[in-house]
């Protein structure tokens, strides 16, 4: 009984209330701006580090450091982010909104890593250390009481603000209909700014309060606050009371799980697995709205590359690859081979997100499954059965993930894939029964029947040929009947329903094929390095992969090639550049924010000449007529 009480107190006071604070922050930002803040965890982490810097390094009193961080710095940061960055995304697609906040998450981690050396151990003392009270035989520290009090106070104040004050009611009106509210004289942008200021502040409170319970670690703190996602989803990102209840339930589940469940090999890291399972279950059982007639977001699609052009480009690329294979020095191949393998994995994003409009944050998990299958089935000889197993396993798992996730759209699907990726990190990749005690698996290069590709040079040429084949295949798919249907589903699910299009089958096929490509890329990536470890597939790298794909044009295969190579060269940059630490993540974050509203990317076919022509065309005549087909011209369409 005493253990149960202790676990209950820990569940509520240590985890539940902290999750409640950060989740309420998420709800506030979402309800005021309509943007889900993936960076909530990173912002809380930065708040905690700032508090540590002021209180522990500069010797400020705790209350002063807390006040400055929570009431001044973080609200200013939130308002600044909203005004400079997020306000522009009001009419942008979900893809751009997700990209920017994911970029902010990575940027937050990168900035913190650059400022505060992660290898230095830091601790934050609890408030009123040494003071405690005993209630019904259960000891509660004053710090825990502060956590409970702060979360309860935040819940009550926010509830009163949104339902009893004019600005609060106006804020809710903004969420329902921004334009209509603006007509009444209200300023929607002001409320969004206020929402972001409050959200960042709440996140910082959560970060500071939890920091004393765990080590002040950049990744741990970010991920712990990320667990607030699950609680926010219980309230469907709108209801504060339900969010609060969700947070407490999650905290209790986590506490009871750690206390009572046997630690098995599968669930060796329960603290991480439980919130992700909770998130997955909540998302999957949440009643989804029926197909709605959503607002249209104008995203200019890239030019469709024709069959002949894709073949010519592919042949030219293979020619260049062969020349490079003979001219690159030996040291370059490790980066080049990894880069091309990553580009193959990124092609899976072109299919799934670029064409299919489904945002996945778990592509590297599929790649890891591919590497695992290649290692176990391909053996030391690199049997081609290993490649088949890699494709088959990742496709099968992709289908299993996709089946329940098919009813999800946009943000919900992205969060479900994120939960899956985090679960895979904790339960699969860091499992010694899977990756061995050394947490490393050797992966052989495939053994081809006629020619050996075991040398770095030949493997480079082989990877380039595989990349080209998949890229040409994807472009052909884009021009095909299936491709038309795929883009139609992305553009207007509602119209597809009225045409009787079977969206479930199409979405399942896209997700499965995308996972298969990622699995194949993972197997080849393993071969490029000879071995893989859990560090190759953490979910956070899946986010980097997505950002790079967006930055270089997620709908273009050339963009994925460059993105893969840049990703690989990022490790070279980090290895040689000691200041700032994690410079590559900084660059990726900035680049992704910069180009998030141009899904075409630099390789989308809008050359300088074409843009000039378009501009001239717009100036001279309406766009509809400038693109008309002259009478008599043969209609070949995109399928030609």
């Amino acid at each position, binding site marked *: 009984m005493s253990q149960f009480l202790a676990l209950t107190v820990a569940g509520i006071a240590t985890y539940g209330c902290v999750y409640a604070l950060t989740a309420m922050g998420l709800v506030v930002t979402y309800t005021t701006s309509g943007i889900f803040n993936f960076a909530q965890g990173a912002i809380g982490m930065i708040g905690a580090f700032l508090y540590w810097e002021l209180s522990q390094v500069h010797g400020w009193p705790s209350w002063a450091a807390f006040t400055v961080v929570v009431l001044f710095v973080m609200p200013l940061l939130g308002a600044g982010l909203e005004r400079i960055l997020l306000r522009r995304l009001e009419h942008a697609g979900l893809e751009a909104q997700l990209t920017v906040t994911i970029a902010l998450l990575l940027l937050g981690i990168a900035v913190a890593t650059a400022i505060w050396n992660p290898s230095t151990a830091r601790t934050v003392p609890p408030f009123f250390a040494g003071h405690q009270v005993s209630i019904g035989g259960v000891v509660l520290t004053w710090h825990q009481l502060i956590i409970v009090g702060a979360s309860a106070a935040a819940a009550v104040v926010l509830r009163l603000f949104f339902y009893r004050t004019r600005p609060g009611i106006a804020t809710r009106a903004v969420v329902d209909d921004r334009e209509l509210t603006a007509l009444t004289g209200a300023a929607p942008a002001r409320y969004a700014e206020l929402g972001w200021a409050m959200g960042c502040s709440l996140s910082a409170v959560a970060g500071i309060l939890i920091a004393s319970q765990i080590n002040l670690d950049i990744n741990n703190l970010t991920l712990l606050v990320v667990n607030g996602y699950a609680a926010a989803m219980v309230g469907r990102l709108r209801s504060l009371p339900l969010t609060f209840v969700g947070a407490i339930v999650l905290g209790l589940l986590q506490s009871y799980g750690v206390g009572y469940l046997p630690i098995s090999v599968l669930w060796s890291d329960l603290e991480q697995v439980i919130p992700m399972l909770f998130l997955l279950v909540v998302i999957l059982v949440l009643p989804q709205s029926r197909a709605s007639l959503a607002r249209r977001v104008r995203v200019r699609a890239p030019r469709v590359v024709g069959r002949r052009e894709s073949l010519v480009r592919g042949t030219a690329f293979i020619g260049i690859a062969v020349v490079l294979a003979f001219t690159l020095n030996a040291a370059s191949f490790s980066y080049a081979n990894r880069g091309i393998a990553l580009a193959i994995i990124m092609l899976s994003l072109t299919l799934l997100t670029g064409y299919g409009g489904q945002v996945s944050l778990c592509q590297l998990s599929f790649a890891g499954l591919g590497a695992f299958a290649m290692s176990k089935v391909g053996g030391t000889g690199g049997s081609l059965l290993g490649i088949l197993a890699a494709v088959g396993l990742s496709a099968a798992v992709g289908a299993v993930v996709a089946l329940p996730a098919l009813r999800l759209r946009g943000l919900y699907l992205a969060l479900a894939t994120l939960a899956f990726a985090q679960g895979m990190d904790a339960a699969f990749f860091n499992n010694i029964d899977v990756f061995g005690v050394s947490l490393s698996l050797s992966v052989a290069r495939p053994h081809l029947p006629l020619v050996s590709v075991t040398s770095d040079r030949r493997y480079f040429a082989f990877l380039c040929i595989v990349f080209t084949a998949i890229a040409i295949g994807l472009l052909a798919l884009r021009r095909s009947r299936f491709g038309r249907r795929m883009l139609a589903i992305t553009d*207007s699910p509602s119209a597809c329903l009225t045409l009787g299009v079977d969206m479930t089958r199409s979405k399942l096929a896209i997700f499965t094929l995308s996972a298969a490509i990622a699995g194949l890329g993972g197997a080849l990536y393993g071969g490029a390095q000879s071995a893989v470890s859990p560090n190759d597939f953490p979910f956070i790298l899946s986010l980097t992969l997505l950002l790079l794909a967006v930055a270089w044009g997620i709908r273009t295969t050339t963009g994925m090639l460059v993105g893969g190579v840049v990703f690989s060269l990022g490790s070279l940059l980090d290895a040689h550049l000691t200041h700032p630490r994690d410079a590559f993540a900084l660059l990726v974050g900035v680049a992704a924010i910069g180009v998030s509203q141009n899904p075409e990317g630099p390789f989308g076919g809008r050359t300088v000449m074409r843009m000039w022509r378009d501009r001239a065309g717009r100036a001279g005549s309406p766009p509809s007529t400038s693109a008309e087909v002259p009478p008599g011209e043969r209609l070949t369409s995109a399928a030609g």
Partner: protein
Amino acid sequence: MLRVDEVSVSFGGLKALDAVDIDVDTGQVTGLIGPNGAGKTTLFNVITGFQRPDNGEVLVDGRDVTHAGPKKRARLGLGRTFQRLEIFGSLTVLDNVLVALENGGLRGRHAREAGIDLLRRVGLERSALTQADVLPTGMARLLELARALACRPRVILLDEPSSGLDGTESAQLGRLLVDLAGEGMAVLLVEHDMDLVMRVCTRIHVLDFGRIISVGAPAEVRTDPAVQAAYLGGASTGAER
């Protein structure tokens, strides 16, 4: 062909549709008019399965489809266009129509020829290779119509199809709708262009505050005092009617 029986829909305290009855017969263009906010688009959404009614039934050819989803209703022969455009902007105009034709089983050259025929019918054949998201509103509405026709619907619901068209184009559209009805299709037309409605519709239903306030031939509806009050802002309210 299409029967809406005692359908009611409420959004919170607002009664968007109140025991609405409508019959749409084969071979006729049936009009559905009413001031903004009368519930026309909500009724379209109920008929096509995007909105579940609180009460009432929707029957297609005598078959109750009230609980069927939009996809199933489409396969039973219900087609529609949207007030807020729902075209496939990433695709060309021809590809928009091909999606529907290929879903119906046509392939390759046959699908392409059928697609061009449909585009010709709505006057868009010269824009076949234009990317759909650069079309002006009027042309985009015609594209939605062509795409809906590609499914060979038995009943077609058109939500303000003439919006964005000039007088000549609107007249062409009117002739097309009459032709479609002549070919055995049941057409339900929501439209603000009263000239077009009065010209092509055999029968008109007038909706106001979620209730049918008048049904009849164009000449009857035109002279109905309740309709005039609804459009000209008479003293009577929906509750009084």
